[in-house]
Protein backbone atom coordinates (compact mmCIF):
# COMPACT_ATOMS: atom_id res chain seq x y z
CA UNK A 1 0.00 0.00 0.00
CA UNK A 2 1.42 3.32 -0.92
CA UNK A 3 0.71 6.72 0.49
CA UNK A 4 -0.16 8.46 -2.74
CA UNK A 5 -2.10 11.64 -2.48
CA UNK A 6 -4.49 10.37 -5.10
CA UNK A 7 -6.34 8.70 -2.26
CA UNK A 8 -8.69 11.63 -2.06
CA UNK A 9 -11.79 9.54 -2.14
CA UNK A 10 -13.52 12.14 -0.03
CA UNK A 11 -14.69 14.23 -2.93
CA UNK A 12 -16.40 11.24 -4.47
CA UNK A 13 -18.41 10.61 -1.34
CA UNK A 14 -20.58 13.67 -1.68
CA UNK A 15 -23.81 11.73 -1.41
CA UNK A 16 -22.65 9.86 1.68
CA UNK A 17 -21.70 13.14 3.32
CA UNK A 18 -25.18 14.59 2.86
CA UNK A 19 -26.75 11.40 4.20
CA UNK A 20 -24.53 11.52 7.25
CA UNK A 21 -25.50 15.11 7.94
CA UNK A 22 -29.17 14.25 7.79
CA UNK A 23 -28.87 11.22 10.03
CA UNK A 24 -26.75 13.16 12.54
CA UNK A 25 -29.38 15.86 12.65
CA UNK A 26 -32.13 13.31 13.22
CA UNK A 27 -30.22 11.78 16.12
CA UNK A 28 -29.62 15.16 17.66
CA UNK A 29 -33.31 16.01 17.42
CA UNK A 30 -34.33 12.72 19.02
CA UNK A 31 -31.95 13.32 21.91
CA UNK A 32 -33.29 16.83 22.37
CA UNK A 33 -36.84 15.54 22.46
CA UNK A 34 -35.86 13.11 25.23
CA UNK A 35 -34.47 15.98 27.26
CA UNK A 36 -37.51 18.09 26.56
CA UNK A 37 -39.79 15.29 27.74
CA UNK A 38 -38.71 16.17 31.27
CA UNK A 39 -40.54 19.46 30.86
CA UNK A 40 -43.66 17.51 30.03
CA UNK A 41 -43.46 15.85 33.44
CA UNK A 42 -43.43 19.15 35.26
CA UNK A 43 -46.17 20.46 33.02
CA UNK A 44 -48.18 17.33 33.77
CA UNK A 45 -47.80 17.72 37.53
CA UNK A 46 -48.76 21.38 37.48
CA UNK A 47 -51.62 20.80 35.09
CA UNK A 48 -53.26 17.97 36.98
CA UNK A 49 -52.91 19.59 40.40
CA UNK A 50 -54.22 22.91 39.18
CA UNK A 51 -57.04 21.49 37.10
CA UNK A 52 -58.51 19.39 39.88
CA UNK A 53 -57.93 22.10 42.48
CA UNK A 54 -59.74 24.62 40.34
CA UNK A 55 -62.71 22.25 40.27
CA UNK A 56 -62.37 21.86 44.01
CA UNK A 57 -62.28 25.58 44.68
CA UNK A 58 -65.48 26.01 42.74
CA UNK A 59 -67.19 24.26 45.64
CA UNK A 60 -65.08 25.46 48.51
CA UNK A 61 -63.83 28.97 49.04
CA UNK A 62 -60.13 29.47 49.55
CA UNK A 63 -60.77 31.35 52.75
CA UNK A 64 -62.67 28.39 54.19
CA UNK A 65 -59.93 26.07 52.99
CA UNK A 66 -57.27 28.00 54.83
CA UNK A 67 -59.14 28.91 57.99
CA UNK A 68 -61.62 26.15 58.80
CA UNK A 69 -60.51 24.03 61.72
CA UNK A 70 -62.22 20.83 60.74
CA UNK A 71 -61.48 18.42 57.98
CA UNK A 72 -64.48 16.24 57.23
CA UNK A 73 -64.80 16.11 53.47
CA UNK A 74 -67.03 13.06 53.34
CA UNK A 75 -69.64 14.08 55.88
CA UNK A 76 -72.92 15.63 54.89
CA UNK A 77 -71.84 18.75 56.71
CA UNK A 78 -68.48 18.81 55.02
CA UNK A 79 -65.61 20.92 56.26
CA UNK A 80 -62.41 21.50 54.35
CA UNK A 81 -59.88 23.08 56.65
CA UNK A 82 -56.42 22.19 55.44
CA UNK A 83 -54.92 23.38 58.72
CA UNK A 84 -56.01 20.07 60.21
CA UNK A 85 -53.79 18.10 57.88
CA UNK A 86 -51.10 20.74 58.02
CA UNK A 87 -50.90 20.36 61.76
CA UNK A 88 -50.19 16.67 61.39
CA UNK A 89 -47.51 17.34 58.79
CA UNK A 90 -45.91 20.11 60.79
CA UNK A 91 -45.85 18.25 64.10
CA UNK A 92 -44.41 15.07 62.64
CA UNK A 93 -41.83 17.02 60.67
CA UNK A 94 -40.80 19.04 63.71
CA UNK A 95 -40.29 15.85 65.73
CA UNK A 96 -38.31 14.35 62.87
CA UNK A 97 -36.11 17.39 62.49
CA UNK A 98 -35.71 17.60 66.24
CA UNK A 99 -34.09 14.19 66.04
CA UNK A 100 -32.32 14.44 62.71
CA UNK A 101 -30.78 17.89 62.87
CA UNK A 102 -28.92 17.74 66.18
CA UNK A 103 -27.85 14.13 65.81
CA UNK A 104 -27.02 14.53 62.14
CA UNK A 105 -24.94 17.62 62.68
CA UNK A 106 -23.02 16.12 65.58
CA UNK A 107 -22.32 12.95 63.61
CA UNK A 108 -21.28 14.94 60.54
CA UNK A 109 -18.92 17.05 62.61
CA UNK A 110 -17.54 14.01 64.34
CA UNK A 111 -16.93 12.13 61.09
CA UNK A 112 -15.23 15.06 59.48
CA UNK A 113 -13.14 16.54 62.29
CA UNK A 114 -12.65 13.84 64.88
CA UNK A 115 -13.01 10.37 63.50
CA UNK A 116 -10.10 8.48 61.97
CA UNK A 117 -10.45 8.10 58.23
CA UNK A 118 -10.94 4.37 58.53
CA UNK A 119 -14.08 4.94 60.55
CA UNK A 120 -15.31 7.45 58.02
CA UNK A 121 -14.69 5.11 55.13
CA UNK A 122 -16.75 2.39 56.75
CA UNK A 123 -19.55 4.59 58.09
CA UNK A 124 -20.29 6.64 55.00
CA UNK A 125 -21.19 3.73 52.72
CA UNK A 126 -23.09 2.10 55.59
CA UNK A 127 -25.21 5.19 56.05
CA UNK A 128 -25.87 5.29 52.33
CA UNK A 129 -27.02 1.71 52.37
CA UNK A 130 -29.27 2.44 55.33
CA UNK A 131 -30.87 5.31 53.50
CA UNK A 132 -31.87 2.84 50.82
CA UNK A 133 -34.25 0.96 53.09
CA UNK A 134 -37.79 1.36 51.78
CA UNK A 135 -39.94 3.73 53.81
CA UNK A 136 -42.70 1.17 54.21
CA UNK A 137 -40.24 -0.93 56.21
CA UNK A 138 -39.49 2.11 58.36
CA UNK A 139 -43.23 2.43 58.85
CA UNK A 140 -43.34 -1.16 60.02
CA UNK A 141 -40.54 -0.44 62.50
CA UNK A 142 -42.27 2.65 63.79
CA UNK A 143 -45.55 0.92 64.45
CA UNK A 144 -44.32 -2.40 65.76
CA UNK A 145 -41.10 -1.54 67.48
CA UNK A 146 -40.86 2.10 68.44
CA UNK A 147 -44.44 2.57 69.58
CA UNK A 148 -44.37 -0.43 71.94
CA UNK A 149 -40.98 0.77 73.22
CA UNK A 150 -42.36 4.20 73.95
CA UNK A 151 -45.47 2.70 75.47
CA UNK A 152 -43.39 0.84 78.01
CA UNK A 153 -42.20 4.23 79.19
CA UNK A 154 -45.43 6.18 78.63
CA UNK A 155 -48.29 3.69 79.04
CA UNK A 156 -50.90 6.25 77.98
CA UNK A 157 -49.38 6.56 74.51
CA UNK A 158 -51.95 5.61 71.85
CA UNK A 159 -51.07 2.94 69.31
CA UNK A 160 -51.07 5.51 66.53
CA UNK A 161 -49.20 8.66 67.35
CA UNK A 162 -47.17 11.36 65.69
CA UNK A 163 -44.25 10.91 68.06
CA UNK A 164 -43.22 7.44 66.90
CA UNK A 165 -43.69 8.43 63.31
CA UNK A 166 -41.65 11.57 63.84
CA UNK A 167 -38.82 9.75 65.55
CA UNK A 168 -38.64 7.15 62.82
CA UNK A 169 -38.68 9.84 60.16
CA UNK A 170 -35.86 11.56 61.96
CA UNK A 171 -33.77 8.40 61.90
CA UNK A 172 -34.54 8.01 58.21
CA UNK A 173 -33.61 11.60 57.32
CA UNK A 174 -30.46 11.62 59.40
CA UNK A 175 -28.18 9.92 56.82
CA UNK A 176 -29.20 12.59 54.30
CA UNK A 177 -28.21 15.39 56.66
CA UNK A 178 -24.99 13.66 57.66
CA UNK A 179 -24.01 13.07 54.05
CA UNK A 180 -24.58 16.58 52.75
CA UNK A 181 -23.30 18.37 55.85
CA UNK A 182 -20.21 16.24 55.96
CA UNK A 183 -19.44 17.01 52.34
CA UNK A 184 -19.87 20.70 53.05
CA UNK A 185 -17.64 20.53 56.11
CA UNK A 186 -14.95 18.60 54.33
CA UNK A 187 -14.93 21.14 51.55
CA UNK A 188 -13.59 23.78 53.90
CA UNK A 189 -9.94 24.20 52.92
CA UNK A 190 -7.36 22.82 55.28
CA UNK A 191 -5.51 26.10 55.64
CA UNK A 192 -8.47 27.69 57.41
CA UNK A 193 -8.26 24.97 60.03
CA UNK A 194 -4.50 25.19 60.23
CA UNK A 195 -4.73 28.86 61.03
CA UNK A 196 -6.89 28.03 64.01
CA UNK A 197 -4.84 25.07 65.24
CA UNK A 198 -1.68 27.13 64.98
CA UNK A 199 -3.13 29.45 67.58
CA UNK A 200 -3.58 26.65 70.06
CA UNK A 201 -7.24 25.91 69.55
CA UNK A 202 -8.63 22.44 70.12
CA UNK A 203 -10.50 20.48 67.44
CA UNK A 204 -13.82 21.39 68.99
CA UNK A 205 -13.04 25.10 69.08
CA UNK A 206 -11.81 25.03 65.51
CA UNK A 207 -14.89 23.12 64.46
CA UNK A 208 -17.31 25.48 66.13
CA UNK A 209 -15.59 28.77 65.47
CA UNK A 210 -14.01 28.25 62.07
CA UNK A 211 -15.27 25.22 60.22
CA UNK A 212 -18.99 25.48 60.85
CA UNK A 213 -19.27 29.18 59.97
CA UNK A 214 -17.35 28.50 56.79
CA UNK A 215 -19.65 25.66 55.75
CA UNK A 216 -22.87 27.02 57.21
CA UNK A 217 -24.69 27.43 53.92
CA UNK A 218 -23.98 23.84 52.95
CA UNK A 219 -25.15 22.66 56.35
CA UNK A 220 -28.33 24.71 56.25
CA UNK A 221 -28.92 23.46 52.72
CA UNK A 222 -28.87 19.92 54.10
CA UNK A 223 -31.37 20.94 56.79
CA UNK A 224 -33.69 22.39 54.24
CA UNK A 225 -33.51 19.32 52.08
CA UNK A 226 -34.28 17.31 55.20
CA UNK A 227 -37.35 19.48 55.83
CA UNK A 228 -38.47 18.91 52.30
CA UNK A 229 -38.09 15.16 52.71
CA UNK A 230 -40.01 15.20 56.00
CA UNK A 231 -42.89 17.17 54.52
CA UNK A 232 -43.29 14.73 51.67
CA UNK A 233 -42.90 11.52 53.63
CA UNK A 234 -45.90 9.27 53.28
CA UNK A 235 -45.60 5.70 54.43
CA UNK A 236 -44.11 6.16 57.88
CA UNK A 237 -46.85 8.55 58.94
CA UNK A 238 -49.59 6.56 57.26
CA UNK A 239 -48.65 3.41 59.10
CA UNK A 240 -47.58 4.78 62.47
CA UNK A 241 -49.61 7.92 63.01
CA UNK A 242 -52.87 6.62 61.71
CA UNK A 243 -54.94 8.19 59.02
CA UNK A 244 -57.53 10.01 61.10
CA UNK A 245 -57.46 13.76 60.56
CA UNK A 246 -57.03 15.44 63.89
CA UNK A 247 -56.28 19.08 64.47
CA UNK A 248 -53.62 18.98 67.17
CA UNK A 249 -50.21 20.27 68.03
CA UNK A 250 -49.59 17.47 70.48
CA UNK A 251 -47.29 14.75 69.16
CA UNK A 252 -48.71 12.13 71.53
CA UNK A 253 -51.97 12.05 69.62
CA UNK A 254 -52.74 10.26 66.40
CA UNK A 255 -53.28 12.47 63.36
CA UNK A 256 -53.23 12.42 59.60
CA UNK A 257 -50.72 14.35 57.56
CA UNK A 258 -51.45 15.69 54.11
CA UNK A 259 -49.72 12.69 52.61
CA UNK A 260 -51.51 10.17 54.85
CA UNK A 261 -54.86 11.66 53.87
CA UNK A 262 -54.13 11.12 50.20
CA UNK A 263 -53.26 7.50 50.93
CA UNK A 264 -56.43 7.00 52.92
CA UNK A 265 -58.56 8.29 50.09
CA UNK A 266 -56.68 6.25 47.52
CA UNK A 267 -57.19 3.10 49.55
CA UNK A 268 -60.89 3.71 49.53
CA UNK A 269 -63.05 3.92 46.51
CA UNK A 270 -63.89 7.45 45.54
CA UNK A 271 -65.60 8.02 42.26
CA UNK A 272 -63.65 10.06 39.78
CA UNK A 273 -64.90 13.63 39.71
CA UNK A 274 -66.46 13.67 43.17
CA UNK A 275 -65.57 16.32 45.68
CA UNK A 276 -63.79 13.72 47.78
CA UNK A 277 -61.62 12.88 44.78
CA UNK A 278 -60.80 16.52 44.25
CA UNK A 279 -59.74 17.04 47.85
CA UNK A 280 -56.66 14.92 47.35
CA UNK A 281 -55.51 17.17 44.55
CA UNK A 282 -56.09 20.30 46.57
CA UNK A 283 -54.11 18.69 49.37
CA UNK A 284 -51.46 17.65 46.90
CA UNK A 285 -51.22 21.18 45.61
CA UNK A 286 -50.67 22.49 49.12
CA UNK A 287 -48.00 19.85 49.68
CA UNK A 288 -46.35 20.63 46.37
CA UNK A 289 -46.17 24.34 47.10
CA UNK A 290 -44.68 23.75 50.54
CA UNK A 291 -41.94 21.44 49.29
CA UNK A 292 -41.28 23.66 46.29
CA UNK A 293 -40.71 26.57 48.62
CA UNK A 294 -38.15 24.67 50.61
CA UNK A 295 -36.51 23.15 47.53
CA UNK A 296 -35.97 26.59 46.04
CA UNK A 297 -34.61 27.80 49.36
CA UNK A 298 -32.28 24.82 49.58
CA UNK A 299 -31.09 25.17 46.01
CA UNK A 300 -30.39 28.86 46.52
CA UNK A 301 -28.37 28.11 49.64
CA UNK A 302 -26.32 25.45 47.88
CA UNK A 303 -25.66 27.90 45.09
CA UNK A 304 -24.46 30.45 47.58
CA UNK A 305 -22.26 27.80 49.09
CA UNK A 306 -20.54 27.13 45.78
CA UNK A 307 -19.43 30.70 45.44
CA UNK A 308 -17.51 30.77 48.69
CA UNK A 309 -14.10 29.62 47.55
Amino acid at each position, binding site marked *: *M*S*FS*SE*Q*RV*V*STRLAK*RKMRHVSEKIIETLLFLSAAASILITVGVVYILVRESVLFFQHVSIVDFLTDTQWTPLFDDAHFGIVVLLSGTIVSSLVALGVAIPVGTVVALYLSEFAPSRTRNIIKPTLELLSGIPTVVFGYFALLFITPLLQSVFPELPGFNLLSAGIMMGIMIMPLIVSISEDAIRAVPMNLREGSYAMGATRLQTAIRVVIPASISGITASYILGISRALGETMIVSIAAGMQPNFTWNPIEPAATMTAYIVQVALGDLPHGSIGYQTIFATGLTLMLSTLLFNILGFWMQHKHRERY
Partner: protein
Amino acid sequence: MVTSPITRSQISPTSLPQKAKVQDFSFYYGDFCALKNITMPLCEHRVTALIGPSGCGKSTLLRAFNRMHDLYPGNRYEGEIVLYPDNTNLLDHRVDPIEVRMRLSMVFQKPNPFPKSIYENVAYGLRVRGVKKRALLDDAIEEALTQAALWEEVKHRLRHMAFTLSGGQQQRLCIARALATQPEILLFDEPTSALDPIATAHIEERIHALKDQVTILIVTHNMQQAARVSDLTAYMYLGELVEFGYTDEIFIKPKEKRTEDYITGRFS
Protein backbone atom coordinates in the same frame (compact mmCIF):
# COMPACT_ATOMS: atom_id res chain seq x y z
CA MET B 1 11.94 8.64 -2.88
CA VAL B 2 14.92 9.65 -0.81
CA THR B 3 15.46 13.32 -0.27
CA SER B 4 19.00 14.58 -0.34
CA PRO B 5 20.06 16.94 2.43
CA ILE B 6 19.42 20.48 1.34
CA THR B 7 21.45 23.39 2.54
CA ARG B 8 21.04 27.08 2.27
CA SER B 9 23.19 27.35 -0.82
CA GLN B 10 20.58 25.57 -2.84
CA ILE B 11 16.85 26.16 -3.25
CA SER B 12 14.97 28.67 -1.11
CA PRO B 13 12.41 26.95 1.09
CA THR B 14 9.48 28.71 -0.51
CA SER B 15 10.23 27.17 -3.88
CA LEU B 16 10.27 23.60 -2.63
CA PRO B 17 7.19 21.57 -3.68
CA GLN B 18 4.45 22.45 -1.21
CA LYS B 19 1.76 20.30 0.34
CA ALA B 20 -0.03 23.20 2.00
CA LYS B 21 0.27 26.91 2.55
CA VAL B 22 -0.78 29.01 5.49
CA GLN B 23 -1.81 32.39 4.15
CA ASP B 24 -2.48 35.43 6.39
CA PHE B 25 -3.92 33.18 9.03
CA SER B 26 -5.19 34.76 12.23
CA PHE B 27 -6.97 32.96 15.02
CA TYR B 28 -9.15 34.34 17.80
CA TYR B 29 -10.22 32.74 21.09
CA GLY B 30 -13.26 34.92 21.64
CA ASP B 31 -11.80 38.42 21.54
CA PHE B 32 -8.23 37.38 22.19
CA CYS B 33 -6.04 37.18 19.11
CA ALA B 34 -3.88 34.10 19.57
CA LEU B 35 -2.28 33.99 16.12
CA LYS B 36 -1.44 37.07 14.06
CA ASN B 37 -1.22 36.94 10.29
CA ILE B 38 0.81 33.78 9.86
CA THR B 39 2.09 33.08 6.37
CA MET B 40 4.15 29.95 5.92
CA PRO B 41 4.54 27.10 3.43
CA LEU B 42 4.34 23.45 4.41
CA CYS B 43 6.80 21.64 2.18
CA GLU B 44 5.96 18.22 0.85
CA HIS B 45 7.82 15.22 2.15
CA ARG B 46 9.70 17.29 4.67
CA VAL B 47 9.54 17.58 8.43
CA THR B 48 8.69 21.10 9.55
CA ALA B 49 9.11 21.99 13.22
CA LEU B 50 7.26 24.72 15.08
CA ILE B 51 9.29 25.99 18.02
CA GLY B 52 8.89 28.81 20.48
CA PRO B 53 8.35 29.56 24.18
CA SER B 54 5.17 28.56 26.03
CA GLY B 55 2.15 30.45 24.88
CA CYS B 56 3.57 31.41 21.50
CA GLY B 57 0.73 29.70 19.66
CA LYS B 58 2.53 26.77 18.08
CA SER B 59 0.00 24.20 19.27
CA THR B 60 -2.82 26.56 18.32
CA LEU B 61 -1.45 26.72 14.78
CA LEU B 62 -1.01 22.97 14.59
CA ARG B 63 -4.54 22.25 15.79
CA ALA B 64 -5.96 24.67 13.26
CA PHE B 65 -4.80 22.36 10.48
CA ASN B 66 -7.22 19.64 11.43
CA ARG B 67 -9.93 21.97 12.72
CA MET B 68 -9.61 20.81 16.31
CA HIS B 69 -10.69 24.26 17.42
CA ASP B 70 -14.12 23.59 15.93
CA LEU B 71 -14.82 21.30 18.86
CA TYR B 72 -14.94 24.22 21.26
CA PRO B 73 -17.22 27.24 21.03
CA GLY B 74 -16.13 30.82 20.60
CA ASN B 75 -13.25 30.38 18.16
CA ARG B 76 -12.75 32.23 14.91
CA TYR B 77 -10.47 31.75 11.90
CA GLU B 78 -9.33 34.43 9.50
CA GLY B 79 -7.22 33.78 6.44
CA GLU B 80 -6.52 30.48 4.78
CA ILE B 81 -4.71 27.21 5.03
CA VAL B 82 -4.69 25.87 1.49
CA LEU B 83 -4.13 22.20 0.79
CA TYR B 84 -2.50 21.24 -2.50
CA PRO B 85 -2.95 20.02 -5.17
CA ASP B 86 -6.73 20.57 -5.01
CA ASN B 87 -6.45 24.09 -3.52
CA THR B 88 -8.93 23.41 -0.75
CA ASN B 89 -8.98 26.00 2.02
CA LEU B 90 -9.08 23.82 5.15
CA LEU B 91 -10.44 26.66 7.23
CA ASP B 92 -13.41 27.44 5.04
CA HIS B 93 -16.61 26.89 7.02
CA ARG B 94 -18.11 25.23 3.95
CA VAL B 95 -15.46 22.52 4.19
CA ASP B 96 -16.58 19.78 6.54
CA PRO B 97 -14.08 19.43 9.40
CA ILE B 98 -14.63 15.68 9.35
CA GLU B 99 -13.32 15.57 5.80
CA VAL B 100 -10.32 17.63 6.80
CA ARG B 101 -9.59 15.17 9.60
CA MET B 102 -9.84 12.29 7.18
CA ARG B 103 -6.98 13.73 5.16
CA LEU B 104 -4.80 14.83 8.06
CA SER B 105 -3.91 12.80 11.14
CA MET B 106 -2.69 13.88 14.54
CA VAL B 107 -0.52 12.39 17.27
CA PHE B 108 -1.06 13.99 20.65
CA GLN B 109 1.24 15.03 23.44
CA LYS B 110 0.21 12.46 25.99
CA PRO B 111 -0.33 9.05 24.38
CA ASN B 112 -4.09 8.61 24.25
CA PRO B 113 -4.88 5.11 23.02
CA PHE B 114 -8.54 4.20 23.40
CA PRO B 115 -9.40 1.77 26.19
CA LYS B 116 -9.80 -0.94 23.56
CA SER B 117 -7.53 -3.64 22.15
CA ILE B 118 -4.42 -2.81 20.15
CA TYR B 119 -6.16 -4.09 17.03
CA GLU B 120 -9.24 -1.98 17.57
CA ASN B 121 -7.18 1.13 18.23
CA VAL B 122 -5.48 0.96 14.88
CA ALA B 123 -8.66 -0.18 13.17
CA TYR B 124 -10.79 2.69 14.43
CA GLY B 125 -9.85 5.20 11.75
CA LEU B 126 -10.64 2.63 9.08
CA ARG B 127 -13.93 1.63 10.69
CA VAL B 128 -14.98 5.24 10.73
CA ARG B 129 -14.46 5.24 6.97
CA GLY B 130 -16.69 2.21 6.60
CA VAL B 131 -14.01 -0.44 6.04
CA LYS B 132 -15.52 -3.68 7.32
CA LYS B 133 -13.77 -6.51 5.54
CA ARG B 134 -11.58 -8.41 7.97
CA ALA B 135 -8.88 -9.10 5.39
CA LEU B 136 -8.58 -5.44 4.45
CA LEU B 137 -8.42 -4.38 8.07
CA ASP B 138 -5.82 -6.99 8.95
CA ASP B 139 -3.57 -5.90 6.10
CA ALA B 140 -3.91 -2.22 6.81
CA ILE B 141 -3.27 -2.72 10.51
CA GLU B 142 -0.16 -4.79 9.93
CA GLU B 143 1.14 -2.19 7.49
CA ALA B 144 0.49 0.67 9.90
CA LEU B 145 2.06 -1.09 12.87
CA THR B 146 5.11 -1.92 10.76
CA GLN B 147 5.44 1.70 9.73
CA ALA B 148 5.33 2.61 13.41
CA ALA B 149 8.00 -0.01 14.22
CA LEU B 150 5.63 -1.73 16.61
CA TRP B 151 4.53 -4.77 14.64
CA GLU B 152 7.14 -7.20 15.89
CA GLU B 153 6.44 -6.30 19.50
CA VAL B 154 2.66 -6.67 19.37
CA LYS B 155 1.85 -9.04 16.54
CA HIS B 156 1.15 -11.88 18.92
CA ARG B 157 -1.02 -9.86 21.25
CA LEU B 158 -3.17 -7.71 19.05
CA ARG B 159 -6.22 -8.52 21.15
CA HIS B 160 -4.66 -7.29 24.35
CA MET B 161 -5.76 -3.99 25.78
CA ALA B 162 -3.76 -1.01 24.66
CA PHE B 163 -3.03 0.13 28.18
CA THR B 164 -0.86 -2.93 28.74
CA LEU B 165 1.78 -1.30 26.54
CA SER B 166 4.50 0.96 27.87
CA GLY B 167 4.35 4.72 27.35
CA GLY B 168 6.66 4.65 24.35
CA GLN B 169 4.81 1.72 22.81
CA GLN B 170 1.50 3.50 23.36
CA GLN B 171 2.75 6.52 21.48
CA ARG B 172 3.93 4.35 18.61
CA LEU B 173 0.48 2.76 18.68
CA CYS B 174 -1.00 6.23 18.31
CA ILE B 175 1.30 6.83 15.37
CA ALA B 176 0.16 3.55 13.80
CA ARG B 177 -3.43 4.58 14.40
CA ALA B 178 -2.76 7.86 12.65
CA LEU B 179 -1.00 6.17 9.74
CA ALA B 180 -3.62 3.50 9.12
CA THR B 181 -5.81 6.01 7.32
CA GLN B 182 -3.07 7.05 4.90
CA PRO B 183 -3.09 10.73 5.74
CA GLU B 184 -1.62 13.41 3.50
CA ILE B 185 -0.19 15.35 6.42
CA LEU B 186 0.81 14.00 9.82
CA LEU B 187 0.61 16.44 12.71
CA PHE B 188 2.65 15.84 15.87
CA ASP B 189 1.83 17.84 19.02
CA GLU B 190 4.90 17.54 21.28
CA PRO B 191 4.84 13.77 20.82
CA THR B 192 7.74 12.91 23.11
CA SER B 193 7.32 15.35 26.00
CA ALA B 194 5.74 12.61 28.13
CA LEU B 195 8.26 9.90 27.20
CA ASP B 196 11.64 8.75 28.49
CA PRO B 197 14.80 9.31 26.37
CA ILE B 198 14.87 5.83 24.84
CA ALA B 199 11.24 5.99 23.76
CA THR B 200 11.89 9.51 22.48
CA ALA B 201 14.72 8.23 20.33
CA HIS B 202 12.43 5.60 18.83
CA ILE B 203 9.80 8.17 17.95
CA GLU B 204 12.31 10.54 16.41
CA GLU B 205 13.69 7.74 14.32
CA ARG B 206 10.16 6.96 13.10
CA ILE B 207 9.51 10.57 12.18
CA HIS B 208 12.66 10.58 10.15
CA ALA B 209 11.69 7.37 8.35
CA LEU B 210 8.12 8.44 7.66
CA LYS B 211 8.79 11.75 5.97
CA ASP B 212 9.35 10.04 2.64
CA GLN B 213 5.78 8.98 2.64
CA VAL B 214 3.88 11.76 4.35
CA THR B 215 4.41 15.45 5.05
CA ILE B 216 5.08 16.07 8.72
CA LEU B 217 4.48 19.10 10.94
CA ILE B 218 5.77 18.78 14.47
CA VAL B 219 5.41 21.09 17.46
CA THR B 220 8.19 20.77 19.99
CA HIS B 221 9.43 22.78 22.94
CA ASN B 222 12.72 20.88 22.80
CA MET B 223 15.09 22.73 20.51
CA GLN B 224 17.54 19.90 20.25
CA GLN B 225 14.73 17.68 19.03
CA ALA B 226 13.83 20.22 16.38
CA ALA B 227 17.44 20.35 15.29
CA ARG B 228 17.67 16.57 15.11
CA VAL B 229 14.45 15.79 13.42
CA SER B 230 13.34 18.60 11.14
CA ASP B 231 14.35 19.95 7.75
CA LEU B 232 12.58 23.26 8.16
CA THR B 233 11.81 25.22 11.28
CA ALA B 234 9.41 28.01 12.13
CA TYR B 235 10.08 30.10 15.21
CA MET B 236 7.02 31.66 16.80
CA TYR B 237 6.70 34.23 19.52
CA LEU B 238 3.51 35.58 21.12
CA GLY B 239 1.30 34.52 18.22
CA GLU B 240 3.54 35.75 15.42
CA LEU B 241 5.74 33.86 13.02
CA VAL B 242 9.13 35.43 13.63
CA GLU B 243 11.29 33.43 11.28
CA PHE B 244 11.00 30.47 8.93
CA GLY B 245 13.76 28.66 7.12
CA TYR B 246 15.98 25.63 6.90
CA THR B 247 16.70 24.15 10.28
CA ASP B 248 20.43 24.44 10.12
CA GLU B 249 20.17 28.09 9.01
CA ILE B 250 17.87 28.95 11.87
CA PHE B 251 20.06 27.25 14.40
CA ILE B 252 23.44 28.35 13.11
CA LYS B 253 22.76 31.81 11.80
CA PRO B 254 19.24 33.07 12.49
CA LYS B 255 18.21 36.24 10.73
CA GLU B 256 16.12 37.72 13.54
CA LYS B 257 17.47 38.78 16.89
CA ARG B 258 14.41 37.37 18.66
CA THR B 259 15.13 33.97 17.16
CA GLU B 260 18.73 34.19 18.22
CA ASP B 261 17.72 35.08 21.79
CA TYR B 262 15.50 32.03 22.00
CA ILE B 263 17.98 29.65 20.39
CA THR B 264 20.80 30.73 22.62
CA GLY B 265 18.68 30.28 25.67
CA ARG B 266 18.33 33.84 26.84
CA PHE B 267 14.79 32.87 27.60
CA SER B 268 12.77 29.75 27.14
